[in-house]
């Protein structure tokens, strides 16, 4: 009931077939921006997504829309389905029911993980996952937007432009000194930053960021907040976080998940005083 009232004005997604004849005859691979059609102002459409593991419903008819360029925070108690939702968007988990569209054309449920990643959905894991036996530089190089097919990768050399891009990202994530250090030797906070850097190298349209400030100092988490706020606008950013202070510092719009569905959605202040949300968080 509540879910429906939240989405009274469901955004229209006029479906357009992906393989229109023109692009086939022109023998040109359509660019990413052509494929991801966001004319309606929305970039992610999740509708009635249900995922169950051995009878337990991790997601229960979840419906969620993300606007192009928005910064959305997703909060919720443990087991609310936040990470499962990201798994569905990135192709790791296939839902039992529901639809998931990326832009107006791309059906996420029919794409593989690498395809989704190449189309511009980048993901940062809850536990920082970097390539520990590679240097910071190589981690960024591997993540960089490029032709990622096998033979192309064999002969691949960095261009000057790409070196500049890596230097630029190193600057943003503050790991210039550690460029040749093995990623495994970094501190927890630095690994978080490196993973954010890898996300930037992919040049994604959507950033899914799972608990970005876990294990960071107050100062580090402040600069993370600043970075994410700058990224929003050009990119659509979805942040899952437990740290309420952090959420308060960046959030424009907050979605509360509970037991696999949306409990409430709105500006932070409104959510803060929502009776249901308070009950879920404090009542247990």
């Amino acid at each position: 009931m509540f879910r429906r009232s939240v989405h009274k004005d469901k955004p229209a997604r006029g479906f357009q077939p992906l393989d229109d004849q023109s692009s086939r005859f022109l023998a040109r691979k359509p660019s990413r921006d052509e494929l991801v059609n966001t004319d309606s102002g929305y970039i992610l459409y999740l509708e009635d997504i249900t995922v169950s593991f051995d009878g337990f419903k991790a997601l229960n008819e979840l419906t969620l829309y993300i606007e192009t360029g928005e910064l959305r925070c997703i909060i919720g108690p443990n087991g609310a389905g936040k990470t499962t939702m990201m798994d569905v968007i990135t192709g790791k988990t296939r839902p039992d029911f529901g639809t998931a569209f990326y832009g107006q054309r791309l059906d996420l449920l029919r794409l593989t993980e690498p395809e989704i990643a190449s189309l511009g959905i980048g993901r940062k894991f809850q536990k920082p996952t970097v390539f520990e036996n590679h240097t910071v530089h190589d981690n960024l190089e591997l993540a960089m937007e490029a032709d990622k097919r096998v033979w192309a990768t064999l002969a691949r050399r960095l261009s000057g432009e790409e070196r500049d891009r890596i230097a630029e990202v190193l600057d943003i994530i503050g790991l210039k000194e550690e460029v040749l250090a093995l990623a495994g030797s970094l501190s927890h906070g630095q690994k978080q930053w490196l993973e954010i850097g890898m996300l930037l190298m992919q040049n994604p349209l959507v950033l899914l960021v799972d608990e970005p400030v876990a294990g960071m100092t107050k100062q580090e988490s402040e600069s993370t907040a600043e970075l994410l706020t700058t990224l929003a606008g050009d990119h659509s950013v979805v942040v899952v976080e437990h740290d309420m202070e952090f959420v308060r510092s960046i959030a424009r719009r907050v979605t509360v998940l509970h037991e696999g569905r949306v409990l409430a959605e709105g500006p932070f202040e409104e959510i803060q005083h929502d009776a249901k949300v308070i009950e879920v968080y404090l009542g247990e």
Partner: protein
Amino acid sequence: MLLGRLIKQDWGRSILLGTLGVMCVVVPVANLLVPEDSAFHVSTYTVTLLGKYLSYALLAMALDLAWGYCGILSLGHGAFFALGGYAMGMYLMRQIGTRGVYGHPELPDFMVFLNWQELPWYWFGFDAFWFAMLMVVLVPGLLALVFGWLAFRSRVTGVYLSIMTQALTYALLLAFYRNEMGFGGNNGLTDFKDILGASLQSDVTRVVLFVVSAIALALTYLFCRFVVTSKLGRVVTAVRDADDRTRFIGYRVENYKVWIFTVSAVLAGIAGALYVPQVGIINPSEFEPLKSIELVVWVALGGRGTLYGAALGAVIVNYAKTWMTGAFPEVWPFALGGLFILVTLSLPKGVVGLVRSLPYWLASRVLYMYHKWGSLIRAKFSH
């Protein structure tokens, strides 16, 4: 600083290529030019033995590419080695011509013995050297491609994949034991006479085969090194360490695994083709699962993920095997098992890792001694 750089520098590459280069010159000279009664003469038996070790080293390097760099623990790489060997053996069989026991111009002896009237279709073309060489590469390569595609696409990894590779080589073992397969049954292919018109019994041919093996090993090393230092190599090690992450930054992990597995199988096939003319026989025992496991021990002992470590491990274990199966044959299986346990427990990086860490260990001992005794001496003299 200089000491630090000397320690850090990777000597394995120079040592491997240098040794192979020196052997290419010294061994032929010592065998063909030095008189037999001289102390510096190297017997043809030794040349062949060394050539066999080199083909094993190439096989070990092939496995290291898949296991050390991509984490694919194949326990059936002997199958690709044997298939390459069989392709070479078929060529050598066809070269026998009328010199077989039955003197049949077309059919190998074992087919005459089985009362076969004509050559099976899959033996056609093997009288041409180029065709046989093509098959040395294609047969193991295609098998690995199909097997890898099916396995990696279904995301079979770890122990399950290892068991499947064991099953693969065991299935081939059973198939090649059958006489009806047309590959000589349990006797395999043997009694070879000559290769490219040169007698396999002559010293010169033996030396040439040895030199070819050495060059093949050096080229394989350079090729593998090119692969692992390319961006593809970095992707492959990324797949080994965190395959999920690699997928989420846009790499099709299964394609990379299939590629590296296939390349590795092709190299193993080439190793088999070098092995067969030197040992003079190929039979189904090469498909035995135990042989493939032994191969894993070579790589683990030498040190995986270094390429030259694999080659070193192959030579060490096979030298020990040659010596021990002569001296105490019944002890060998236990020695091999013990070696594997020893390496797993105390030498996770193999001999190469041990040698690399020696300078650090020595330096730390020296510093420790200096502090311990230095303070004692100072204490003595200050009073």
